[in-house]
Each structure stands twice: as C-alpha cells, then as structure tokens.
C-alpha cells in the first residue's frame, strides 16, 4: 500500500465508516424538541391503530338523554356529543379517519408527484417545460380553494375527499422533486455515470433516487399536518367525511351549534387536530434540520 501524506493524516481520525442516514439519525436524536414531537406523533398513531381496544365505549352508540353532557360526567369522562355519544371514544376513534385523511393523500401525492418531478428534472428540455407549465396551472389555485372546488364538484365522501386532497398536493411535491433532481443532475457524478454508458433508468435508480428521495420525503411529511387540517376543514364544511363517522373535523361541524350550550366540549375535537398538526410539524422541522448539516 502506498503510504501517502494523506493517509497518514487520516490515520489520526480513523472511525468506522458511517452511512449518511445513520448520521442523520444521530443528529435527530440530539434535538429534544423534535424527539418529543416524534413521540407524541407516534402516540397518536398508536392510538389510532388500537382505537377499538382503547376506547371505553362504542363511538356510534348514543343516548339522547345524555346529549351534550359536560366534561367530567359520570361514565363520560370528556362529556357526550349532540347525539349522546361518548366524546372520549369518538375522539380516539376520530384519530383513525383524521390521520388516514392526513397521511394517505400525501403518500399518494408523494408517489405520483415525486415520479413526475424526478422525470421532469432528469429529462430536462421540453418535457420539463411542458410538465412544469401544466402543473403551474394547478399551482395557480390557492390549495384550500382547489380542495374545496374539487370536493364541492364531486360531492361529499371519503374517496372524493382523498382524491381532491391528492390532486392538491401533487403540484407542490412535483415542484420540489423537479428542483432537487435538476440540481443533482448538474453534478459531475451524474456525468460520470452517463460516461459509463449506463441507461437513463439505471442512472436514476442508482444515482439519482438515493440523493433525491430524502429531501422530497421530508417536504412531503411537512404536508401531512396541512392535509389533516384541510381534510378536517372539508368535513367541517360538509364535504369529505360524512356522519355518523367519527372524524375530528366532522365533529367540529356537528358540534358547532353546541358552543352556546357546552362551549368547551365543542372545542375538544379541534384540540386533537391542533395537537396532531403541531407534533407532525415539529417532527418534520426536526428531520429537516437533521438532514441539513453541511458536511
């Protein structure tokens, strides 16, 4: 082995070779706020998954005598809603649909928007121009308006809600994907890969994806809380989820008139939305900082 000045200097700092993601993980774990947020988010997800086992009562079972019982009533720790159903159980079950409507559209948009953006970014030229211009048209609508417009046109229902939210999120994700891919594409290791004779598909798979999916994914996670709030907003307007399902936005809608009778009860579903949204936001922020450190 040739002994060079370089290698001797390096001997002093020999450490086990660490992958990029492992160092991201280490940095993330040092950020207390982000870890806290992550735990809360994880807790909420677990609550949603195990809802039928955790909830004390049936969320759809209501007794009109008990309607709008205040918080702390015997047998109804968080009160009862306008149809006499146990609030605690409905809130716990509500996590399922609310998280579902928050995560699924973003996931699908990540897949579709990511693919479109990466393709446009790598291929460049007129493919890129046309794709981005078409996306610009959708981007020209404020997202709330677009979601409501599509939902409003299609009508209420979970599937329609999912569809409209997915469409709303595809353009921003595609934009980020295109921008990241374009900046990666200019780097010399892509040129070197092209000079090796590899096909475009292979280059994308082996060289582009690994470097590009990370930032796109982090951006997508920052959209989860937006999606949740938007989905709950749709239900709040009477689109999206329909009764008698338990979903936080829908609950806010149906309890609206109760604010004069049981104000704090009516506000409870919003607390859940807020809690989920803020923990996902901080989680995503923490992830972004952990990935952002310059080498």
């Amino acid at each position, binding site marked *: *082995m*040739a002994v*060079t*000045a*370089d*290698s001797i*200097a*390096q001997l002093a700092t*020999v450490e086990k*070779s*660490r*992958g*990029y993601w492992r160092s991201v993980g280490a940095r993330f774990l040092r950020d207390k706020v982000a870890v806290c947020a992550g735990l809360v988010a994880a807790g909420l997800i677990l609550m949603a998954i195990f809802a039928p086992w955790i909830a004390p009562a049936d969320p759809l079972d209501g007794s009109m005598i008990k309607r709008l019982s205040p918080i702390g009533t015997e047998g109804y720790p968080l009160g009862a809603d306008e149809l006499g159903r146990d609030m605690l159980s409905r809130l716990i079950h509500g996590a399922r649909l609310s998280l579902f409507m928050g995560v699924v559209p973003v996931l699908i948009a990540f897949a579709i928007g990511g693919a479109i953006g990466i393709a446009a970014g790598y291929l460049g030229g007129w493919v890129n121009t046309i794709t981005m211009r078409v996306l610009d048209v959708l981007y020209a609508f404020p997202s709330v308006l677009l979601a409501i417009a599509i939902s409003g046109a299609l009508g209420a229902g979970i599937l329609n809600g999912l569809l409209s939210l997915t469409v709303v999120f595809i353009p921003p994700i595609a934009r980020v994907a295109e921008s990241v891919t374009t900046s990666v594409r200019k*780097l*010399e*290791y892509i*040129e*070197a*890969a*092209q*000079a*090796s*004779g*590899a096909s475009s598909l*292979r280059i994308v798979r*082996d*060289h582009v994806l*690994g*470097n590009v999916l990370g930032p796109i994914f982090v951006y997508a996670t920052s959209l989860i809380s937006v999606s949740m709030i938007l989905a709950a907003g749709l239900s709040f307007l009477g689109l999206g989820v329909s009764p008698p399902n338990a979903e936080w936005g829908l609950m806010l809608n149906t309890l609206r008139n109760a604010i004069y009778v049981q104000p704090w009860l009516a506000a409870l579903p919003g607390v859940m939305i807020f809690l989920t949204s803020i923990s996902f936001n901080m989680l995503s922020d923490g992830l972004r900082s952990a990935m952002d450190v310059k*080498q």
Partner: protein
Amino acid sequence: MKTPILSAHNLVKHFNAGGFGAARKVVRAVDDVSFELARGETLGVVGESGCGKSTTARLLVQLLTPDSGGVRYDGKVVGPDMPLRAFRSKVQMVFQDSFASLNPRMTMIDAVAFGPSVHGVPKAEARRKAQGLLERVGLDPARFGGRYAHELSGGQRQRVNIARALAFDPQVIVLDEAVSALDKSVEAQVLNLLMDLRRERGLTYVFISHDLNVVRHISDRVMVMYLGEVAEIGPAERLYSEPRHPYTEALLAAMPSLDPDRRTLEAPLAGDPPNPIDPPPGCRFHTRCASAFGPCASKVPAPHSLGGGHVAACHLNSSKEHAA
C-alpha cells in the same frame, strides 16, 4: 501515418444564453476545433477560463452532442461506425471537482465497481476488480472501500476517480483540470500516479489545465485554445521554446518565475478576455494582441503548418515579414 486513436473534426458547439429573435445571445463555446491524438501520447490543453477547454473535453467524451463536426475513435465515426457503448469503455474522463464526481450515497468500492457492472461484469467480480484498482491507486481497499466521499480528502477522492476511470480498461483518459483543485504536494503525488499508470498501461491522455508548468511536465504535445478556437498546437518543447502565436507567447510570459532575471515589468496581456457571446471579428485575439496588423481585424487566420506537427493560426506566420 498511423490512424490517430482519437480525433476531433471541426467540432462546433454553441449554447443559448437567453433573448429572443434578433436579441438572441449565443455563447460560441467551441468553434471549429480539430485535432488528433496518437496512441500513447499525452496532449496538454491550455487556455484561459472560457476558452472552451471543458466543452471540448465533454464533446470528445460524448457527454455533449456537437452542433456540427464529429469525433472518431481509431478512424471510426462514433455513432454510425462505432456503437456508443463500446466507445464508453474505451474513452473515460476524470473531472475537476473530486467531491461532486462521487455519489455521496455510494461507498468508494461501489463507485468504482459501477462502471464494470454497467458493462455486464457480475457484481462480485466487479467488486474484486474495484478492490484491485483502489489498491493500485494507493488506497487500501480494506480501509477505504467502505467509506463515503465526505470521509476522504481531496487527493484521496481524486485517486478514487482515477480508479473509477481505469475500471473500464480504457485506452484514452480525458483529465479535465483533474489536479487543479488539489494542494501542490498532493498534486505532485497524483501526477506521479498518472504518469506511472500511463507507462504501465500504455494509456493516452488528454490533459487539460491552466497550469503551464504542469502541462509541460506531463505532455508530449500541447494545444493552446482561445475563445473556442485552436490558436496553436505542437510538440511541447517546441511550443514552449518557440511559440508562434502571440497568445501563446503572452501566456508563457505571464508564468510567474522565481528567477529574478526574468522579472516582468509590464503585464504581457492587455485588457480583459472578451465575451464568448460576442467574439471580435477576424482573429479573435486581435483586440489584445501587441502584434496585430492589417488582416487581423477582418480575416480569420487559417491554421498554418510550421513543420513537425507544429501548427499556429496567426496571420504573422503566413506573412513574409515575420522574423524567425
């Protein structure tokens, strides 16, 4: 005359720089560049920033498609007579930015093994080959193979890049400012490595650099470029001792020297390098040339052969008034 292993024929490459219609701006990066490369020789390419060296390098390696003109390998036109894939395993390139040349998510051994695996070599064998190459360029595969680009120094990374180019068993390697970004001592080591490899494997190099000393040290012939055109080309020693183009003279005069007898009192080159978007008419160098005369402002000088493979594109050579 033996067939040159690589030859460029009237390469032209222009880039758009914005503007529409009449206001369209075009960067004339490479304008009618031709040269030949004999097997086993090293051609140095020098010139200031913006002269088209890097663009020419990429045209040569087929990373860019020329607007007109072509590249031939062993006499065969790349594309029609020689499939691109086969060409790729014969001609490779090492870039200036050693860090940007490596995928930050790939280990060094995988980076070197990628090339062979693209050409059908099974993974295990490609890895073994990569290990051998890392060893050859001076990096212990056990220590460096599993590392990532950010864990290596500049010199080490460039060695990996060289190993990566060698993995194809190429005949020609284009080195685009490959040592320019390294510290001087490291630069010397990498140059030595390159020269050893050249001897061992009979490689042909195109060595692009702005450092005239290094180029002289490593090259058999040297090509001087200015604003997208070839100003002069010839055997290294001849070019350095008897330059026949005012630009070459100026470049050589501008080289700093430790010899107090060779102090420069005046800057040999006047003015700023003009814009490749709007090159001067006639000889592109005439606006900064101390010896410019009559035809220089209007007629583009044709390459004039001065014997022994020495060619210069300057009106002074074809006019009888030029003193030897």
